């Protein structure tokens, strides 16, 4: 492995990337400290993968800079420090688990004992030691996901880029992946984790950057983000009957807004849970039929909703 480079693990300064008319990343600046786990949280198409790919050196920004331990992203030194786990199952389907790990280890310049040790560690870490001789196509979906992660880490990189590693896996496998990420953190790796699942970001990451339309619209620890958006207020979701003519105007008049993509649902931030009663009274007076009310403790999803007016899963 190359000697440790100088500088913080990741520094992105005003990164812009356009694909034709679409601005996928729009002036993103981020610093990630050693050993930290940064969650990039945003809906599909927010620009998370483009951001990750620019760190991996696979996307060249139109402007701005990305540095890995002080080295330009994509340089040999930066690539040696990075382990990228793409969203796709980027494996050789006809090779076994061990052969896949061997291939990707050798692509990182490993050989001899370092390669053997890397493979052994990865098989243990991904709980695939007993399936090391099985070809990828015979593995379950969860095993393939774990092998996909392991293939990016054979060379034991100091920065790990995990791009939606739990897409399409069952809850049990997801928990196993969470344990793997926690173990990585225990070894001191710096992790950048993209997801559109709020629970994952809350559980795994100590810092979260909320991304929408290619921009970081909020950044900090979960509690900080909630505090910034809601203070001590709570989130109320109110669903109106389909017969209600113009709920948007009414919601706006009472300090709320309609939730994009959810027909007839308005959300409000309230200081006290008892404020719900006031909203229900007002709706009743104005002749609006309310069919459902939910009081939520604000979470990252609420923050996203508050900041963008849209649901994280849209």
């Amino acid at each position, binding site marked *: 492995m190359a000697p440790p480079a100088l500088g913080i693990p990741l520094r992105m300064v005003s990164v812009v990337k356009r*694909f034709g008319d679409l601005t996928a990343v729009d002036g993103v600046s981020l610093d990630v400290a050693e050993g930290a786990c940064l969650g990039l949280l945003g809906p599909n198409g927010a620009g998370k993968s483009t951001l990750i*790919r620019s760190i*991996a*050196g*696979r*996307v*060249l920004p139109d402007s701005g800079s990305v540095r890995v331990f002080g080295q330009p992203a*994509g340089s*040999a030194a930066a*690539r*040696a420090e*990075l382990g*990228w786990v*793409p*969203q*796709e*199952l*980027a*494996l*050789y*389907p006809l090779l076994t688990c061990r052969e896949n790990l061997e291939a*990707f280890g050798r*692509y*990182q*310049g490993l050989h001899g004992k370092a390669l053997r040790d890397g493979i052994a560690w990865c098989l243990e870490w991904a709980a695939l030691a007993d399936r090391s001789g099985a070809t990828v196509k015979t593995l379950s979906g969860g095993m393939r996901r774990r092998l996909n992660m392991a*293939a*990016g880490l054979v060379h034991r990189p100091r920065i790990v880029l995990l791009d939606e590693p739990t897409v399409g896996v069952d809850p049990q496998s997801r928990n196993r992946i969470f344990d793997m990420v926690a173990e990585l953190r225990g070894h001191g790796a710096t992790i950048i984790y993209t997801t559109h699942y709020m629970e994952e970001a809350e559980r795994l990451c100590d810092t979260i950057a909320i991304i929408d339309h290619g921009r970081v619209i909020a950044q900090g620890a979960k509690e900080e983000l909630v505090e910034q958006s809601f203070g001590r207020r709570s989130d109320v979701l109110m669903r109106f009957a389909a017969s209600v003519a113009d709920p948007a105007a009414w919601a706006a008049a009472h300090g709320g807004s309609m939730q994009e993509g959810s027909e007839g649902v308005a959300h409000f931030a309230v200081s006290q849970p008892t404020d719900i009663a006031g909203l229900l009274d007002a709706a009743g007076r104005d002749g609006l039929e309310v069919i459902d009310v939910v009081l939520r403790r604000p979470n990252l999803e609420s923050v996203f909703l508050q900041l963008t007016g849209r649901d994280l899963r849209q």
Partner: protein
Amino acid sequence: MIAMIAAIIQNGFRSLRRDRGALILSFVLPVAFFSIFGMIFGGVGGDKTPRVSVLLVDDDRSTVSERLVQALLQEPSLDASIHPKAKKGEPVPPDYTAAAAETAVKQGDAPAALIIPKGFGAHPLAFGPSGQRTPIQLLHDSSDPVAAQMVGGMLQKVVMTSMPDTMEKMGMQYFEKYSGGLTPEQRKNIDAAMSRQPAAPAQTGSGGGGELIALNVRDVVGEKKQNSMISFYAAGIGVMFLLFTASAAGGSLLDEAESGALDRILSSRVNMTMLLAGKMGYSALLASAQLTLMFLWGAAVFRLDLFTHIPGFIVMTAATSFAVAAFGMLLASVSHTRAQAGAIATLIILTMSAIGGSMFPRYFMPESMQKVGLITINAWAIDGYTKVFWRDEPLLHLAPQVGVLMGAGIVLFLIARRFARRWEFS
């Protein structure tokens, strides 16, 4: 029910319309192949009968032999020559000697040579097997079995149509010999009739008839070969399938691009040039293994003389595999999907194989098509293997074939590398 069936039919055509690969295979390929075979066998316009090349050597230098040579030179179905073609700006080379003509046939410059020996003019023809005549030597390369037959037949025809006076004279000699002589009056009448016969070679009229001119036919290439054409087919068929294998091996790039593995590989310490070189190395080794298997099978089952030609086989196999592997890389790098690569590969490989001699020998084709064939990997590979296994030529003589194949491989790889830039970054 009919509406449902109609919907299925409609869906089929809608899908076909959006699948360019299938469209090409369905419509472009058949028309392209029809055109290629039409050009090879029918000629554009249908008037280009392939001519057989033959070298002429006149060791007799008699009036009769010179007339025969002139007649052969003017025979439309033969491409006869008495000396090598002159290069631009250089004087006409000397006429072929018997030895030079034999060497030229051995080297594949022409499939046959006719040597008119000294004394031919004194006894050019004979009627019947017992007649006294001086045989003409027909040297030929048995890898082209048609050429010798055709040259032999055309020689008899040319004699019939170009030397009727000689035939008459010889006939009268026979008559006089076996009838006890002519009266002076008979002699006068016959001389008068013979003087009316044309002395110049005739250009029309059907040939045939008996064996007027004795022919001494000799294989100068492949006379000791146990199984004459097997090396040609091993090379021809082998190269065609190699091209398919190489295109499939190159297509793994497209699979990896689609699965994301390519991105992952390029985010490691492997760069695009290394990746392409690795893929090409694999493809070339696979191609070498395939060719080796083909020739080993040929040796085991068809008595192909592989083991006395190992150095030439290795050189040709290495050069052919290199060129073929580079072709596969280029194909993958210009294609956007596996389906597209498959369609393009089928079109190009079958076309190259047809005009390059993998399906049938190029010497069956018109000269213009033979020249067009030289743009294919198949033609150069087959020529090289033929030199090794058929003509027993030394390694140095493989320089043109090896040079072209290696050069083509390098150029194709460089072009592939240029196209592969689209995968490097986005």
